[in-house]
Structures are given as C-alpha cells and as structure tokens.
C-alpha cells in the first residue's frame, strides 16, 4: 500500500467496505458533494476525497470492453457437477447455470425483478395468478426457437413424484402452469404470492428445451455456449453469437474449482485466476495489500448457526436454548471469526438485508454469562454433544468459542467434528445439536417458508408453531405495509424469543455473513446481488476485462 503516498488515492485503493459505501452511495443517487463530505468527515483531505469520488464515478460509468477470457475458481466441484438446473446445489453449478441458460425473470441488486426470457410479466389483483409473456426472438444453442412449451416443460420438472428438483418446495404453491398461447404461460397459484417472479429468478428455474433429459451439452438460451464440460475438472463457455440480447462481453469463460482455500487464494494472488469464490476473511488484508487483486464483499442475509432440535433433549428445554443464546459472543464472532465481514445475528434468520421485512425493534441478545448461568441451571443440563461440520466458513471456530464460554457457566459442550460429506443426510436434523448454514433467499417469506414453517421439510429444529405457519401464509396476501411489517415482526419474535407457552425455534444464529470473494482488478461489471457468491452468480454475462 506504499504507492498510495505517491499519488492521489482512487477508489481502487480503498478497502472493500469503504469502496462499497461510496459506490452504493453513488448508485443510490448521492451527489458528489455528499460523498465528499462523508470522506472528509472520515479524515480524507479534500484533494484525496475528490480523487476518490471521481474514480468511483468512472468505475461505475465506464463502458464495458469486449473480448478476453475470464477464469473463475469456485470452492467445490467433483463428479456430481451437473448441467441439470433442477439438480443444482453448488456455486459452481449456479454459475454454469447463469452462463448457459436463462430464467424467466432476473433479480436485481435490490432484490426487485426485471424481465429476462419473459418480456413482461404481471399478476392479477391479489397476486394469485401470474402471466408471463415470453420473448419471441430467443433461440436455443441448437438453433430451435423458444416457445411456451419449453417453459411449461422446464417448470414441470419441479413437480410430481418423479421430480428430483432441489427447489420444488419453492414453487409448491403453484397449482398449475398453463400454456395460453405459443408465447404466453400462466401460473395459477393456490393463494396469493407476490414473490413468484423473484423465486423464478433463483438458479434452479432455468429454462431448458422441451423434452430434455440429457444435460451433458447444456442446450440453453444463455450468453455462452458449452465448449467443454469435464466434471470435477473444468467447463468452458464460448460467447453465444446468436444471443437474444446484447450478450456477454468476454469471448470465453473457464469455470473451475480449487478446493483448497489457501491454494485458491494463491492462484488469485499469482494471477492464475481472475475471479475466486469464498475468500477467507482472514486473507482480506493480504489481498487488499496486493496490487492487481481486490475483494468483492457483499452484505447479505446468509447465516450460520446452531440448531437445538425441539423434539428431543436438550433442545426441548427452552432454558437450555436460552443459555446457549446468551453465551454467544456475537460481536467477537464478527470481529475475530468473520474479520468484520458479517453482521450480528439475533437468533433470527431475517436481518437488515431483507429490508422492510426485518424486524428492527428487537433487542440483540448481549453476551451475558449471568443470564446464561441462570437459564442453564433452570434447565438442569450439564453435558451436551454438538455435531459440527464446516458447512460454512467460520462455523467450527464459532462453536469452539461457544465451547469455551459454556465451560464458564458449567456446561460441558462437547464438540464432535463430523465430515462434510454425508452431513446433510446423516447428521443435520437427525442429531439433537447440530449446525446449519443457509444462503440468503430472495424474500423473507421464502426464507421462513423453507426453514421455519411447521410443515417445511427443512425445518432445522423441527419447530412446530402452527400459529406461525398460519401467519406465514396469511402475510403473503397483506398489501398494507404497516400491517405486513407488524406481522413479520411478530413472527421473528416467535423464532428468536418465543413465549413461555410457545418456545422459540431453538435456533442460535450468532451472525450473518457477507459473501466475500476475490477478483482481479482487471475484471469489472460484477453485480452486488446478495443471494450468492460474486453478486449472486450474475457476472458471466455482464463482467468485462479492462485490458481486453
């Protein structure tokens, strides 16, 4: 960072967080004077502040260059790599999905939606019927035109007994997908749901050709055509010359994975890759101090936590759960484990990233050993076994921290480290105390519906609160903002705190983590959509090389 002394700083010299503040400010329409006043207030000289704002403005306004090649390394791949959108579960799959396919709707950085393959979509008055008008100028990679049949087929794969879709629960409330004409489809819902477009923007709902059962060639409509697909090795996409909109900026992308995080970071530092997923927060300082590379950090509602199953001991004892909640050193986790790349959690899955649906008037539980001791004593538990797999970066460290605090209140919290493979099938939701990690979902309703509804298949703690379930469905039809906020707030309190009669969900959520990724300074045009790594996997079509 010594070079800063010699010239005026630009936005590239700032830390990721500072840069984000400024760029977000500019994007939201803050004017130059406002941004400069923040910077000067933060201690920058007028000249430096001016220079920073100018460069930030340039970065936002620069026109993409065409050409070049981008190499992206994810954190996980293997023989289970798939080009079947319905089976996608990993970042590398989602990224491939965005490269070779399109969705009906696309999610913006602020989680609103815009049309993609649907040139327009609209709902009836109570959001219980959605109509999608499909673009007429779209061709699959094999040259055949996109029609309503393809959309109907793509959607049908998420229904029925034979469906292996990993996202079928998200669209379970669509009663029927109906073809209206050759380029119009209608979704008839069981009840009102304003979230359907944003759900259709999530990775699994990519549009494939009618009748496709074999996915090795990725015959989609996306910005790249598949040149090579070697599971566990790499995939290569070439720019789709017949794309229906402006199309990708780079000529070729290579999608691979480097599973070892130190090796992955090394490859970024040495310039062997241009983009990397999952940068260890501890390495941020090093990456920011190395010229030519930078950090891409996006705050989100993703979280990790400890699940105390509510149907069995010790989690069926609300006092035990409270004790675990009070021993959490939430700020310390943000500072030490996540190195600032996260926000404090309050045992509530919905944080500020979900906007208005977040309940702001709950008080965050502070680290309080006296309260913890009180609740532990009341619960009578002295020993508990916590099953931990590193399903999200930092979760093991968080549990080790909890273990030390537990010792101070007289709880012997034994940590049993279990392998990641097989974790979801054999440990999660099966052992009394385990850990979980969730990506952010496009709306509070979707998130709560997936993991907290009484009948949700992935209800982490088997928490059955019928009233909560009823409210969750009811709120979808509420259009009055105040009423809606009030309902969401009550639901979040049910989860986080509970009442004497209806205990909380048994979830201990100490932190929400940012998506922290690494990128070469030569790559621009990456979005900040908070639903996944590197701006929600949206980059393949929009990023570009400054040196192209």
């Amino acid at each position: 960072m010594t070079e800063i002394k010699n010239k005026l700083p630009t936005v590239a010299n700032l830390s990721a967080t500072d840069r984000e503040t400024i760029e977000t400010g500019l994007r939201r329409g803050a004017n130059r004077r406002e941004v400069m006043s923040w910077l000067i207030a933060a201690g920058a000289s007028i000249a430096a502040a001016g220079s920073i704002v100018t460069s930030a403005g340039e970065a936002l306004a620069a026109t993409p260059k065409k050409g070049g090649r981008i190499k992206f390394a994810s954190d996980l791949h293997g023989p289970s790599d798939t080009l079947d959108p319905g089976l996608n579960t990993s970042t590398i799959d989602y990224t491939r999905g965005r490269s070779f396919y399109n969705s009906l709707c696309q999610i913006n950085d602020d989680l609103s939606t815009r049309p993609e393959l649907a040139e327009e979509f609209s709902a009836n008055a109570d959001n219980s019927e959605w109509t999608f008008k499909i673009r007429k100028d779209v061709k699959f990679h094999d040259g055949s035109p996109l029609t309503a049949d393809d959309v109907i087929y793509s959607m049908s794969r998420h229904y029925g007994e034979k469906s292996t879709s990993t996202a079928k629960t998200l669209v379970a409330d669509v009663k029927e997908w109906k073809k209206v004409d050759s380029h119009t489809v209608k979704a008839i819902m069981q009840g009102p749901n304003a979230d359907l477009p944003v759900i259709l923007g999530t990775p699994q709902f990519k549009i494939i050709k009618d009748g496709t059962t074999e996915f090795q060639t990725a015959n989609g409509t996306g910005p790249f055509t598949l040149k090579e697909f070697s599971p566990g090795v790499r995939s290569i996409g070439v720019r789709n010359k017949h794309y229906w909109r402006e199309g990708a900026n780079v000529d070729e992308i290579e999608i691979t994975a480097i599973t070892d995080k130190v090796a992955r970071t090394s490859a970024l530092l040495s310039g062997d890759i241009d983009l990397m997923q999952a940068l260890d927060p501890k390495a941020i300082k090093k990456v920011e101090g190395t010229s030519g590379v930078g950090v891409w950090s996006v705050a989100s509602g993703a979280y990790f936590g400890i699940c105390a199953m509510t149907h069995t001991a010790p989690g069926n004892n609300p006092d035990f759960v409270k004790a675990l909640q009070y021993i959490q050193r939430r700020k310390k986790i943000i500072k030490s484990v996540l190195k600032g790349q996260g926000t404090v959690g309050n045992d509530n899955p919905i944080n500020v990233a979900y906007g208005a649906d977040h309940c702001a008037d709950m008080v965050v539980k502070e680290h309080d050993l006296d309260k913890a001791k009180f609740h532990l004593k009341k619960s009578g538990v002295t020993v508990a076994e916590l099953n931990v797999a590193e399903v999200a970066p930092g979760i093991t460290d968080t549990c080790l921290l909890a273990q030390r605090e537990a010792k101070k209140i007289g709880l012997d919290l034994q940590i049993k480290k279990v392998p990641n493979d097989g974790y979801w099938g054999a440990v999660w939701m099966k052992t009394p105390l385990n850990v979980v990690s969730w990506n952010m979902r496009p709306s509070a309703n979707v998130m709560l519906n997936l993991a907290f509804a009484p009948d949700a298949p992935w209800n982490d703690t088997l928490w059955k609160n019928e009233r909560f379930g009823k409210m969750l469905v009811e709120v979808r039809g509420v259009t009055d903002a105040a009423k809606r906020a009030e309902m969401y707030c009550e639901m979040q309190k049910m989860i986080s705190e509970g009442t004497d009669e209806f205990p909380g969900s048994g979830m201990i959520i100490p932190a929400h983590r940012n998506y922290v990724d690494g990128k070469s300074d030569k790559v621009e045009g990456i979005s900040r959509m908070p639903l996944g790594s590197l701006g929600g996997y949206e980059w393949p079509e929009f990023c570009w090389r400054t040196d192209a």
Partner: protein
Amino acid sequence: MQRMVFQRILIGIVTLWVVSVLVFLMTNALPGDVAQIVLGQSATPESLAAYRAERGLDQPLLFQYFGWLGDMLTGNLGTSKAGGATISSLIAGRLGNTMFLAALVAVISVPLSVALGLLAAMYPGTWIDRALTFGTLALISVPDFFIATFAVLFLAVNLGWLPAIANVAPENTFWEMARGIAMPLIVLVIVVAAQMIRMTRAGILNVMNSPYIEMAILKGVRRKRIILRHAFFNTIGPIVNVIALNLAYLVSGVVIVETIFSYPGLAKLMIDGVQTRDLPLVQACAMIFCGTYVVLIILADVAAILANPRLRNPK
C-alpha cells in the same frame, strides 16, 4: 519363470475381485448415500426417492453389485450415480494425467534415490551419510501439504516463476505444460525419493552382513566393488519392492498434491467418489489402482528373482 508370472496374473485377478468386494462393502457402510449427498441440504424424502429410482439405487445391493460386475466384465464401466456422466469420460483424461505425472516422477526419483542410497551405504557414518540421513528425514517428516503449499507461496506467489495451479489442458503448449507440472513434480520427487533412499541404504548395509560378503572382504575385494557387484544385486529384491510400493502410491495416493495444485488426476477423483458415495466411480478407480499395484508387484517380484538366483529355485 513364465509359469510363475502366469500364476501371479491369476492371483492378481483374484486380488482385483477381493478389492471390488471390499470397496463395495465399505462404501455401502458409509453414512448417507449418493442421493442424500447430491441433493444435500435441499433433499426431501420425495426427491430422494425419485433420485434413487432414476439412478437405479433402489435396487437390492447384491443386484447392484452383480450388475456392476457383469458390466465391468464386458468392458462397460457404467455411469456416475452422482453427475450422470459416463465413468469412462470421467476417467479418460485423468488417467493420462496421473500416469504422465507418475512416470515423470519415477524417471527422476528412482535413479536419483538408488544412487544416493548407494552413496550413503558406501560411506556409512560419514558426513555424506549423515547429511543424506538428515536431509531425507527432514523432508519426509514434513507433511506433503506443507511442502506443496510452501512451494506455491514461494515459487508462484512471491517469485512468480511457476503457475500456482497445474495447467495441463490439452490446448496448452509444451512449455506451458512443463511449467504447469513442475511444482507437483518437485514436491512428489521429494516425497517419494526420501523413503527410497533410506530403504536402499538399509538394504545394502543389511546384505553387507552376509557370509559371502564377509568372505569377499576377507579375500580383500575392494569395498566399492563389493557394494556395486555383490551387495547391490542381493538387495534388489527388497529395493524394487519399496520402489513398486512408491510407484503405486504415485498413481493412487497423491490426493493432497492433486488437490493443492488442482491437478486433475485419479487419486482426487476416487476421494470425490467416496465423498459422494458414487459407487461405480469408486469401483472403477479401485480397479485401476489395484491393477497398477498388481502389475508393479509382479514386476518387482520378477526383478527380485532375476537378481537373486537362489530365489529362482526355492527348496
């Protein structure tokens, strides 16, 4: 001799079968199945059932095993239960990569370590011997992921001489390939040579204790000559054994080096297979590893017999 080799091949086939049963049983004893792993956190009982039905995982275990065995015997390796690609397409490129790297490492490390082992044995207790002892021990006692990571940080990140990941894509030029493979090569030579050096030294010193060497010493034959002409040939049996085991390791056991350098080889593929419970894939890899091992051991035994006349006609 020919009969013996023929016998050993038959035995090798038995070994292959034993391995296939072992791998089948062990993989099935692991918690979770391929459907649970692939669908992961997003699994529901219905989607699990659908996945199992789609991939034939709902059939009885024995049925699955014999189905695999039958396909295997007709040369059909099947398809991956995890991703749906054919096993042969998954393996093809990686097999070449693995054999290429293993051969390169062997070509460098075997002569090097036998020579250094001989050198140490010729001058036991001297500074040459001590230096070799310390050097080899220091190198083998450090975990390979430490050496590999250190090499990446030093040679790729700090100096920028070599790429951090082993680029061996088919479109690369020879020079790119050479640069890409340099680091895994260096690390593996270090890892395997150390053990071979030590065993060569120990083997030779052991033979130096035999009566006929004593006779040769008493007759006044020069030491170098004794070691090179007499002791060495009598140590070949054990030494080729150690070499064979090390070569087998190079084919099947270099998971960590493959992981850190992102070198697409078979060892990592098999670990991935185990971690996704992808039985046909694990079986195919196991068959390749076991086959390699069997061939190498037969070669080692043949070499041992050729080198020691007394083993040719055991009484």
